């Protein structure tokens, strides 16, 4: 009996870890999209996730709109926030430096957080899961059906983004910007528009993450910061700018956090991800999939 319980416990941690890791992966992808085009790390990335959850609550639980239309509606709203962030907080900066951009994105994140607090208050909100709350038993572990939605949407995001960057003209233009903005503008690509697009995409992906997360873990106005830091941990683990790295990093980070919280001390749950982030930064800033040499030459 003991053996089965331990194994199913571990499986439970693994499943939870992969699920939450998918969220971190989505945040990490959002970071990478903006970074690749602008070399900016958007510290307000987590706020998009938070808004995704709360705005969905507003449309679905508050205004009674069914999930199917409410979902894209929420994504649109949060994308608009992302656009505003770019236009009001980033674009007007005269002499962008690493420090000014950090301060600007922090400023934007606390404006968003403060506004959310005024609208929704400090309490956490719940959202009805997309396909009910009946847990599925799998080899002794309990899986919420919502977990599949999370993993599923990660897949959808990854597939759509890959198609976007490789098959569409706009996507290829964005990749060109990421590689070499000067050359890109010389061939007629509007770099400013690409930057705006990158913020829009990141906001949209963050919103998706927030919408699928809320039925599992609730959502409150203050969750953005921690999600952003952990998402950045996934970025560092996987290698800054790397798309597959973001996925790998997110899943690994989520798993480590889940096992740490389960096996060691759940009060320190958040600290595990942070320690992994620090370890990644201190030991191998280029990430598991990144190149050490390129990291040395790049700015950070």
């Amino acid at each position, binding site marked *: 009996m003991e053996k089965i319980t331990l194994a199913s416990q571990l499986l439970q941690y693994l499943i939870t870890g992969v699920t939450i890791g998918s969220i971190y992966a989505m945040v990490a992808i959002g970071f990478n999209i903006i970074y690749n085009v602008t070399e900016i*790390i958007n510290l307000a990335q987590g706020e998009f996730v938070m808004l995704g959850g709360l705005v969905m609550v507003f449309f679905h639980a508050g205004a009674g709109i069914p999930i199917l239309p409410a979902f894209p509606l929420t994504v649109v709203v949060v994308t608009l926030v992302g656009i505003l962030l770019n236009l*009001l*907080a980033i674009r*007007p*900066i*005269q*002499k962008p430096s*690493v*420090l*000014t951009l*950090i*301060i*600007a994105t*922090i*400023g*934007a*994140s*606390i*404006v*968003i*957080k*403060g*506004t959310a*607090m*005024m609208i929704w208050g400090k309490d956490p909100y719940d959202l009805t899961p997309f396909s009910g709350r009946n847990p599925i038993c799998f080899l002794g572990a309990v899986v919420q059906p919502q977990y599949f939605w999370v993993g599923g949407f990660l897949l959808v995001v990854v597939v759509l983004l890959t198609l976007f960057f490789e098959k569409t003209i706009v996507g290829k233009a964005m990749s060109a910007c990421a590689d070499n903005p000067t050359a890109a503008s010389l061939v007629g690509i509007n770099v400013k528009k690409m930057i705006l697009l990158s913020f829009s995409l990141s906001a949209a992906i963050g919103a998706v993450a927030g919408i699928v997360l809320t039925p599992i873990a609730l959502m409150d106005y203050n969750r953005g*910061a*921690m999600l952003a*830091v952990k998402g*950045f*941990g996934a970025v*560092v683990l996987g290698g800054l700018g790397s798309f597959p790295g973001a996925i790998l990093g997110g899943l690994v980070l989520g798993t480590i956090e889940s096992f740490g919280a389960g096996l060691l*001390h759940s*009060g*320190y749950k*958040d*600290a595990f991800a*942070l*320690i992994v*982030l*620090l370890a990644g*930064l*201190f030991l191998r*800033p280029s990430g598991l999939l990144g190149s050490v040499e390129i990291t040395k030459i790049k*700015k*950070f």
Partner: protein
Amino acid sequence: MLRIRKTPIALFAAIIIVFPWIARLIPAIKNYPDLLIFAGIYCLITIGLSLLMGFSGQISLGHAAFFGIGAYISGVLTVRYGFNPWVCMLIGAGFAAVVAVLVGLPSLKLRGHYLAMATLAFGIIVFIIFNEEVELTGGPDGMSGIPGLSLFGFAFDSMERYYYLVWFFVFTSFIFTVNVIQSRSGRALRAIHSSQEASMAMGVDVSRYKIGVFVYSAVIASLAGSLYAHYMNFINPSTFDVFFSIKLLIMISLGGMHDIWGAVIGSFLVTFLSFEWLHYFEEAEIIVYGVILLLVTIFMPNGLIGLPRIVLGWFRR
């Protein structure tokens, strides 16, 4: 040439010394010395932070941690073990220095966003420890019964007495920092900010200086924390959270990072905003801070200190 004039310092000192007398006479600002105690405590932290970020070009988004370390070491050692508060202050400073070295050494190779995130993560981890180690720190409910300070029988038990104590600390560290800025060491720090490569080629031991300035800023933040603990007689982890680190960032950005007076101005402004002016806004307080940061980055990257030059620029046109 970077010359920090002595006259404004003397003038400021005079105002600070005389202020409690004035406050006693005007009922509306009777309690302002209490505000200025907090402004002073924050100045202690921002002076060090300004040297670290504005002059040396480093980043710390986790300085609330050092403030908290000073406060909790003072609190824990005096309340649970009955140590002499002054000794605890020194122990706190020493402990903060050690932590700064342990965090600073591996962070040496980090720059920009990586460094910012590392310090942010460090600050959050320390905050979590304050919350989780309930037996030691009292956890989220906090720790009370922290004694006040007294020296050879003279107790700093009134608002005015504590005011002078805090501002003594502030002026000492202000003058020390100003001296450093105008010295060979200050030049080395500014060189590091401008070009680490060239500094190394000119013989500056960049690593040693970076750690040195980080330790210095950690130590005075820790002293500020101890002073805070002995004034409030009660501390709890929420004072030392990420938002406080961001508030410190707001103080030096708003005042002006590249000028030591910017730290003072920013600390005063944010103290007044926090305790007095924004009280009407209550929940919108956070939004105001965010807007301030955005306005500063867009319109006044050099902070309020840089404002005269901007205004002069308009007139020239």
